[in-house]
């Protein structure tokens, strides 16, 4: 994979992409398995887990612990396809704007909270009427 001397996609871009992937995976899992309490409790943390892992190579570069050449090595594809995302034109076009990242993550996060609130209220209602 060629190493390009271009500015890297910021950590926020990597975080946003995989946060949204985790968010949609959680939504899909919720709709296919709506009765699982464990999914309801731990599922909303999946976007954070994926986003954090995706941003690790960028954070290591910022801390000077990793060079850009190393981070773009094909081996780093195990870290959520970091080299692939880093050198993608579509990722740069869509995710290299901090405001877009904030709005996208904020909207997804708010929806996660709303889902949790609704579920808690529903379970409390069932408990009270039982």
């Amino acid at each position, binding site marked *: 994979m060629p190493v390009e001397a271009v500015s890297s996609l910021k950590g926020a871009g990597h975080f946003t992409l995989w946060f949204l992937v985790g968010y949609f995976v959680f939504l899909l899992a919720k709709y296919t398995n709506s009765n699982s*309490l464990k999914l*309801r409790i*731990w599922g909303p943390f999946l976007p954070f887990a994926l986003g954090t892992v995706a941003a690790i190579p960028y954070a290591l570069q910022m801390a000077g612990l990793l060079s850009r050449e190393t981070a773009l090595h094909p081996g780093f594809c195990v870290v959520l396809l970091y080299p692939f995302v880093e050198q993608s034109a579509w990722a740069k076009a869509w995710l290299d704007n901090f405001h877009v990242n*904030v709005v996208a993550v904020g909207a997804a996060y708010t929806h996660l909270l709303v889902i*949790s609130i609704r579920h*808690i*209220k529903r379970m*409390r209602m069932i*408990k009270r009427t039982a």
Partner: protein
Amino acid sequence: MPNKHVYFAIGALHGAAVIAWVGYNRHAWFEHFRWVRALYRWDRDWFLYFPLAIAFFGALALLPDILLAFELLPKGIIRSNVFNIFYGYAWLERIEDVNPAIDHLLNALGSVVLYGLSLAVLGFYAKELSKQ
């Protein structure tokens, strides 16, 4: 100047402290304050919505930037000392003139604070879900 998320983070931190304080005392306050009893009459689970008020405090911290973005007040006035009531806004705006390294540090800290707060709020709801 620090990025906008730094101001939001400062306001959100304050909001989180206020909400935690209300959450800790709400049962004790039920006996003494009419507004607490009114909240319970409106919705027994009103406190579930309360953490969303953290965003309100964050937005409050961004008010000077909002006034500037909509050109409601000029930059000279926004950077005057009176706007320090918004979590030290004017003082923080001058940070870049002092030392850009502090600017970078504030941006990083702001991201960490927002990340931590987001996880803490999710953790609160996860805890409530696990009680059911």
